[in-house]
């Protein structure tokens, strides 16, 4: 069997660095493989299509449904528009993503790694392209060992070109999230797009090409931090792909011999009854990370379940029950070894650990939705000017200064009035006015979707407490219910 990968453990000792063992997995069909196809199509479709969805926001905002507008510091997601000071929504999403991984991992093990991780999805895609060009596993090993000749060069060039095309499409799709997609696409092809766009595409193309084409399982084993974290998140009730050694061992060799032996149920050379594993190594052949699942749980196993498909196929052929390799928990493994019936899957999923993770995850999500639903599209900040703090005016009154920030987060220019409460006889004027023009309230026009930063001066009689609490309030002229307030102080002494 020369198409079997070199055993990962079969190496010379005292070697500090070793060459990568090439992994050319065999093609396999089965229920998990088909699930992987579905997930690949869905995730790739979401990734490639999302930037092209349109969303009408009126004349003052872009009409792209999902857009990270770094230049104008806005983040658009359908009807939601996030401003920089609302970045906690993004932080919340990131926390949800992390806790979401906790939920998934504690419930169904490394399902993220096996099905949804971009590294897995693109590696899988690249492997299919590779098989399309080079042929099956045997041909791939043969071609790899073959000396460089016209045929090998042609095949390699074809393969790399196809990989590069996929990689370019990947990098190209990513930049569309950061600019108006149709316009950027035209610019990209006419060569007038910003340097950053080309540079981003180049970087993402090269990382996709190298990670998906050449690094593959090495990314999972050496570079990715998730496997280390996930190990800590899993417990005895988390699903993992398991070789049921209590059913498979001792191994028999070859289908014919296995059938004969299993018919007798007695192994001539041993006192133990023969196991179901016929040591055909199909599970190793299909594994995209090149491991032997029969060695037990290991960091190289991304639980993609292709070995389950492969083993099931063999089990069907030798007339043994399926799932010699299957998703099992450590608890079930113990039960099975003791000859008992495993727990129903639902009971394993609903346990304190998963429920607590899910409650935290859902709690953050609901809290964010609630805040999002109630957030005001008008905001005011009042920062007291502290250098100098209190200024004596010629008539003896005291003046304080404030930097006011008005955020008009709606897609239209609006007129606002700023008033102050907390001090009788307060006079307000701006830095572009003089005190002669001071009034009780100041009117500002704030352009659509922007922040107006203004300096306000407030004068009040010197008689009064050293420090008064005051409140700046902004009210929209076209809608009196749209208001926001900012508390601050008025100081009569200072400097």
């Amino acid at each position: 069997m020369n198409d079997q990968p070199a055993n990962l453990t079969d190496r010379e000792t005292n070697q500090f660095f070793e060459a990568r063992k090439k992994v050319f997995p065999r093609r396999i069909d089965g229920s998990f493989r088909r699930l992987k196809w579905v997930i690949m199509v869905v995730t790739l479709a979401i990734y490639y299509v999302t930037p092209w969805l349109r969303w009408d926001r009126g004349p003052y905002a872009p009409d792209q449904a999902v857009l990270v507008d770094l230049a104008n510091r806005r983040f658009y997601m359908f009807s939601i528009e996030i401003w920089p000071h609302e970045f906690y929504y993004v932080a919340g999403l990131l926390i949800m993503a992390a806790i979401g991984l906790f939920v998934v991992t504690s419930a169904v093990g490394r399902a993220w790694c096996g099905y949804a991780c971009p590294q897995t999805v693109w590696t899988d895609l690249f492997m299919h392209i590779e098989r399309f060009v080079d042929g099956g596993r045997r041909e791939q090993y043969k071609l790899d060992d073959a000396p460089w000749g016209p045929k090998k060069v042609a095949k390699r060039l074809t393969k790399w070109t196809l990989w590069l095309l996929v990689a370019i499409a990947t990098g190209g799709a990513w930049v569309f999230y950061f600019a108006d997609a149709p316009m950027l696409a035209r610019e990209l092809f006419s060569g007038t797009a910003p340097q950053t766009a080309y540079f981003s595409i180049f970087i993402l193309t090269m990382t996709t090409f190298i990670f998906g084409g050449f690094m593959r399982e090495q990314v999972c084993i050496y570079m990715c931090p998730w496997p280390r974290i996930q190990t800590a998140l899993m417990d005895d009730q988390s699903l993992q792909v398991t070789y049921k050694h209590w059913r498979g061992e001792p191994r028999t060799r070859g289908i014919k011999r296995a059938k004969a032996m299993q018919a007798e149920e007695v192994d001539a050379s041993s006192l133990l009854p023969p196991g179901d594993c016929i040591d055909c190594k199909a599970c190793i052949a299909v594994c995209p990370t090149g491991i032997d699942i029969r060695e037990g749980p290991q960091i190289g196993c991304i639980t993609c379940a292709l070995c389950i498909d492969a083993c099931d196929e063999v089990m069907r052929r030798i007339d043994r029950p399926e799932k010699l390799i299957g998703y099992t928990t450590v608890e079930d493994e113990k039960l099975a070894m003791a000859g008992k019936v495993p727990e129903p899957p639902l009971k394993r999923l609903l346990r304190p650990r998963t429920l607590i993770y899910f409650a935290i995850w859902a709690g953050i999500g609901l809290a964010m939705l609630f805040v999002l639903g109630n957030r005001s599209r008008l905001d005011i900040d009042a920062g007291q000017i502290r250098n100098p703090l209190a200024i004596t005016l010629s008539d003896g009154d005291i003046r304080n200064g404030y930097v006011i920030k008005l955020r008009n987060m709606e897609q239209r220019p609006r007129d606002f009035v700023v008033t102050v409460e907390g001090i009788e006889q307060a006079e307000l004027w701006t830095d572009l006015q003089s005190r002669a023009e001071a009034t009780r309230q100041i009117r500002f026009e704030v352009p659509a979707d922007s922040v107006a930063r203004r300096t306000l001066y407030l004068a009040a009689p010197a008689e009064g407490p050293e420090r008064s609490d005051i409140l700046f309030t902004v009210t929209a002229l076209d809608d009196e219910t749209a208001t926001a307030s900012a508390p601050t102080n008025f100081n009569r002494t200072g400097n």
Partner: protein
Amino acid sequence: MAEHKEIDQPTGTEKVGHEWDGIEELDTPMPRWWLWTLYATIVWGVAYTIAYPAWPMIEKASDGLLGWSSRGDLHADLAAEEERRAPMTRAIAQIPIERLPEDSELLRFAVEGGRSAYKVNCVQCHGSGAAGFPGYPNLNDDDWLWGGDLQAIHQTLEHGIREPGNRESRYSEMPAFGELGILNRDEMNDVVSFVRVMSGQDSASNASRRGQAIYDIQCSSCHGADGTGNRDLGAPNLTDSIWLYGGDRESLYRTVDQSRYGIMPSWGNRLDPVTVKMLAAYVHSLGGGEELVEQDDSTEVDTNTDDAPDPVTQNERPAG
């Protein structure tokens, strides 16, 4: 270290020799591409120091083959910034200072430009918050020795105060009443008493009544009969709450005795006209800026400054 190594039976790999709570570490070889990555970073590092300034020499660091320098970057950035600002600075250069408020965008630009010019040129005397020090006026308040509208502030900035040799510089000197022997100790004390009554700090007394007589003869020609000062002469308003050198008896006595006045350099020959205009806009924006009274008739400014009631009206306005 190496002699104690053991072989892990299931994998056939050497153990590192450490043990934590029964967990042992295998000495698994690194992938070879990692080794090559290390070599590549070393090559990159050396090449980088050749391409960019890095190696310390006797005089300075090596220049680097690419000819890059952070100073060059800075110059390029500054040139680009200058280019970006050019339309605004040109507009400011063309517009007369008193018409700056007509274009609020231009005014805003001028205020911000003035803010940064202030940080470089003015903080030494007037303080980073423009609150001044004794003898160096507070620019945040509404008391102006020579006038607080855009034009007056611009004139002060352009030509300075009492700058020797500058004919257009604003100029005045208060006599040192004590040192010149015009008033004696008691007379000066009486005048101080009267000034404190005028500014509402003390109530009238015999001393203040004696002082009033001296004031009328010696002081009223500059500070006005009512003590509200005269901006043409830079004579401070003595009735308000703001004192350049302090309003307590001791400070006032010293001022009368020795006479005190400051000198401000003219900035017209140090800074470009646009920067001076922007500085005027910034100082005006600090909260005490006044409106130009006869805004539309700039030719009559000269006659305006001769108008005595002008500062008075300015003072009356906020008092209510």
